[in-house]
């Protein structure tokens, strides 16, 4: 194996390194806690690799600039937190409908509105899926450690290119500001997917016409002599507005299906001790670290507890969890909110086991002891 560089990094800094390793060459952002270190890192690092950074006038503009850069074939990213994530939603929907690859980092903070800017939360879980209006596809990924943040950021760029969707890197303040030693992969170890295009210029001029057997359009970037239109209106295969019910149904169905039908290729999750457990903890992001510690305590006290940790949180790894639901008695969903992923878990469990939520909305983290107490309670 090639030499790996070791570094002590914050989660937010790992996002920057992962993104640059994945080929990101444009970042547009707006200062907001607790994601600002990502913009600061990009301002410093991007020009070093010939990329470009811009601090825009607001969150809406940042999202718009990212899509603009991406249509030229430049891998692009923005980063924000709750209030900014809300402001970006309209243009995230644009990227979903026009099928423009991009990565949006949301370092979640507590509360609606201005909330608690420096405190952790996982309250944007449902917003990551349904934040923009209308039925739309999206992928969201939530890492639990700084190492995973670095690696998943690279995967986010590849998913964005492969499926031509906005990919949400759903961070939380815990992981964003946590410092851990990580190993950075050498360039030869990293798979970087580049944008697929059509060879035949006549075919390329019909950008949304899908190659047989594929779900995702191959769209030649602007500037290469292929002239077509991009719009946020429902459109035909040439990218021109259409009001035909047949075409509109076909387009909306296809953009949904490209994720639904490929869900198992997009999904990623980690399990630990799920085969013979009575109680399963479902947890993600920074909270999964507390869940892991709680499981260690519980096992020392002879409780049979397993962990299911989705890394891809949208689409949710449904089939994998469903299989576990057949044999566990209890599921505890530990998340820093009022019970959002819990709804998804209940939907999948379909009453086969008891689902209990444990969360917190006061700006502090869930502690291992608190989760352990609930494990004891449900095991009675």
């Amino acid at each position: 194996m090639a030499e790996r560089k070791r570094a002590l990094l914050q989660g937010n800094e790992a996002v920057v390194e992962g993104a640059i390793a994945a080929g990101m060459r444009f970042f547009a952002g707006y200062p907001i806690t607790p994601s600002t270190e990502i913009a600061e890192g990009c301002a410093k690092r991007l020009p070093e690799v010939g990329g470009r950074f811009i601090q825009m006038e607001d969150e809406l503009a940042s999202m718009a600039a990212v899509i603009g850069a991406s249509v030229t074939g430049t891998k692009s990213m923005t980063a924000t937190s709750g209030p900014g994530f809300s402001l970006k939603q309209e243009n995230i929907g644009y990227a979903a409908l026009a099928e423009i690859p991009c990565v949006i980092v949301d370092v979640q903070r507590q509360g609606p509105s201005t909330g608690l800017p420096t405190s952790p939360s996982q309250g944007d879980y449902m917003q990551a899926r349904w934040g923009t209006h209308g039925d739309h596809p999206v992928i969201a990924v939530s890492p639990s450690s700084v190492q995973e943040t670095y690696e998943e950021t690279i995967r986010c760029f590849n998913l964005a290119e492969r499926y031509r969707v906005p990919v949400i890197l759903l961070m939380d303040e815990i992981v964003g500001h946590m410092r851990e030693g990580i190993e950075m992969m050498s360039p030869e170890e990293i798979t970087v997917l580049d944008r697929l295009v059509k060879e035949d210029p006549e075919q390329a001029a019909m950008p949304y016409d899908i190659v047989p057997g594929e779900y995702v359009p191959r769209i030649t970037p602007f500037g290469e002599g292929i002239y077509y239109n991009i719009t946020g209106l429902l459109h035909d295969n040439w990218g021109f507005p259409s009001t035909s019910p047949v075409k509109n149904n076909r387009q909306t169905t296809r953009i949904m299906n490209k994720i639904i039908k490929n869900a198992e290729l997009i999904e990623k999750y980690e399990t630990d001790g799920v085969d013979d457990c009575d109680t399963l903890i479902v947890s993600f992001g920074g909270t999964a670290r507390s869940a892991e510690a709680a499981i260690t305590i519980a096992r020392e006290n002879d409780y049979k507890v397993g962990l299911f940790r989705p890394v891809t949180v949208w689409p949710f790894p449904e089939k994998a969890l469903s299989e576990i639901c057949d044999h566990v008695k209890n599921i505890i969903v530990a998340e820093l909110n009022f019970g959002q992923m819990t709804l998804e878990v209940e939907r999948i469990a379909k009453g086969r086991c008891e689902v209990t939520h444990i969360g917190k909305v006061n700006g502090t983290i869930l502690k291992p002891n608190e989760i352990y107490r609930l494990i004891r309670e449900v095991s009675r």
Partner: protein
Amino acid sequence: MPSTLIEKYIRESHLPHIWCAGCGNGTIMRDVIQAIDNLGLDKKDVVIVSGIGCSARAAGYMDFNSIHTTHGRAIAFATGIKMAKPHMKVIVLTGDGDAAAIGGNHLIHAARRNIDLTVVVFNNSIYGMTGGQFSPTTPTGEFATTAPYGSIDPNFDIPELARAAGATYTARGTTYHVPQTIKLIENAIAHDGFSIVECVTTCPTYYGRKNKKGDAVKMLEYQRDNSVSVAKAKTMTAEELKGKIVFGELYVDNEKPEYTKEYEKIIKIAGGRSDE
């Protein structure tokens, strides 16, 4: 003989356009295309960006790299395109509502940066696509569906707003003054920095009807009879200029550094190698 511009630059298969009879938008679209042709730009390097509204539909009819974006955000999308590919000529087609109301923040900040974009504002003094609501350029006292008793909102002077924010080329044309407006757009595109050309256009369907301005011909005659050149305006008093359309080059600054060129210096300082 039909204009060769159509064959070269118009997506004929997507005509007829959606604009109403008497709308001036087609005239402005033609002015932009003529300006591009006069400059001999390589189509490959031209990006047409539009927002939302009647004006925004022009992008789809023009056979370039064209992108019809979200309401108010065309300039922000264009900023991303220009930053990623500084060699490209990025032209924004927008309306008075799109540019000066919902997108006003992007307009002033792009002007402040002096980033090399050309913004062509189709100013019809009304929200046409949604059926005739007052816009930031509807003159005070005039009527609209949301100003049934007359508007109490003061109106913006868009080129003046852009100049105050830092734009280095500002101009105003009209749909009556076609050759002059083509030249203004041409100069704006050739200008290295943020340029804006406000094009006063006719909307007989909504603005005209609501304010008893007559049909398209009447509205064009109004433009002819109430326009004064920049040179002539200099000899007139503020009182005499009331209600007049001052057309021509309003402000030109060739000294202020252009944003993407300044960023190239940042790349050099950071030790990177630009692909541009």
